[in-house]
């Protein structure tokens, strides 16, 4: 039967397995050496057909958050469905070196995020650009504006941040901070106090699995 994969962790006997997975399914552990993967038997019809995908995605998130509270995890993107447990074991075996290294490096860490809308300040906001050059200048101004705001957040959280990455998305600039899991509440407190223009609509969220830091730069 196909299996839905949730996440990979280091093998630790003290981890409490969440009571239920997506659609109330039982969660099973597939172990390969010192790695373990949480998965549940899954009827793909539940996702493709009748069940609301949003509900299933929230069930999936609950499993991830439950495990993240206990240990560092490498999540799978929802829905990752493999043909059976053997295929999952094979995948783990093929990638065990990189996942073991990542979990060791991220063992006590979580990811915090700041989303900033990429807008110019109200004073410099231009009307529709009349040329390509004007459009590009406007985009450059937006980047600089968002970068400056991101820098304020970084500065405020600097003592807590082990690594910082950011990238542009359609929604704005996304900043990712890798912090010790015990520092997550302090990160939220310190970034909440950052004074920024309201039009940047900053959103600070976390803790999340450290997905952005799986690979070393």
């Amino acid at each position, binding site marked *: 039967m196909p299996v839905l994969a949730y996440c990979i962790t280091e093998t630790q006997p003290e981890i409490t397995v969440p009571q239920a997975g997506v659609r109330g399914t039982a969660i099973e552990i597939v172990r390969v050496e010192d790695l373990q993967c949480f998965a549940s038997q899954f009827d*793909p019809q539940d996702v493709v057909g009748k069940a609301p995908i949003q509900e299933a995605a*929230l069930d999936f998130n609950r499993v*991830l958050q439950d495990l993240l509270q206990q240990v560092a995890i490498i999540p799978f993107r*929802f*829905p*990752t469905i*493999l043909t059976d447990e053997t295929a999952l074991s094979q995948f783990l075996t093929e990638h065990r070196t990189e996942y073991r290294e990542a979990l060791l490096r991220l063992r006590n860490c979580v990811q915090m995020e700041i989303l900033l809308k990429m807008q110019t300040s109200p004073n410099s906001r231009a009307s529709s650009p009349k040329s390509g050059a004007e459009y590009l200048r406007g985009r450059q101004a937006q980047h600089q504006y968002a970068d400056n705001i991101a820098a304020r957040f970084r500065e405020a959280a600097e003592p807590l941040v082990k690594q910082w990455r950011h990238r542009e998305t359609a929604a704005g600039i996304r900043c990712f901070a890798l912090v010790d899991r015990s520092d997550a509440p302090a990160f939220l407190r310190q*970034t909440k106090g950052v004074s920024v223009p309201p039009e940047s609509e900053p959103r600070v969220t976390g803790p999340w*699995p450290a997905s*952005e830091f799986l690979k070393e730069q």
Partner: protein
Amino acid sequence: MPQPSEDLVIASADLDQEMTLLDILDHVLNAGVVIRGSLVISLAGVDLVFLGLDVVLTSVETAMRHMRLPDVGPPGASPKGSQR
């Protein structure tokens, strides 16, 4: 509507449940390990390849992006879903 996990904190000046939900969906659909393959799932005698699921994900992601940025253009103009 299911409630988001209480352990996940969303700090925002205009916190509302819909955006919190979008944050969570954005993460589970777009963050994490992606297995690319040619997995074939049969449903009611019809073979559905994994690409079929990917199409669902892309449309959800696109929908979320448009809920955040209503002025970015028609859905057909968006690139295919980003994968990390």
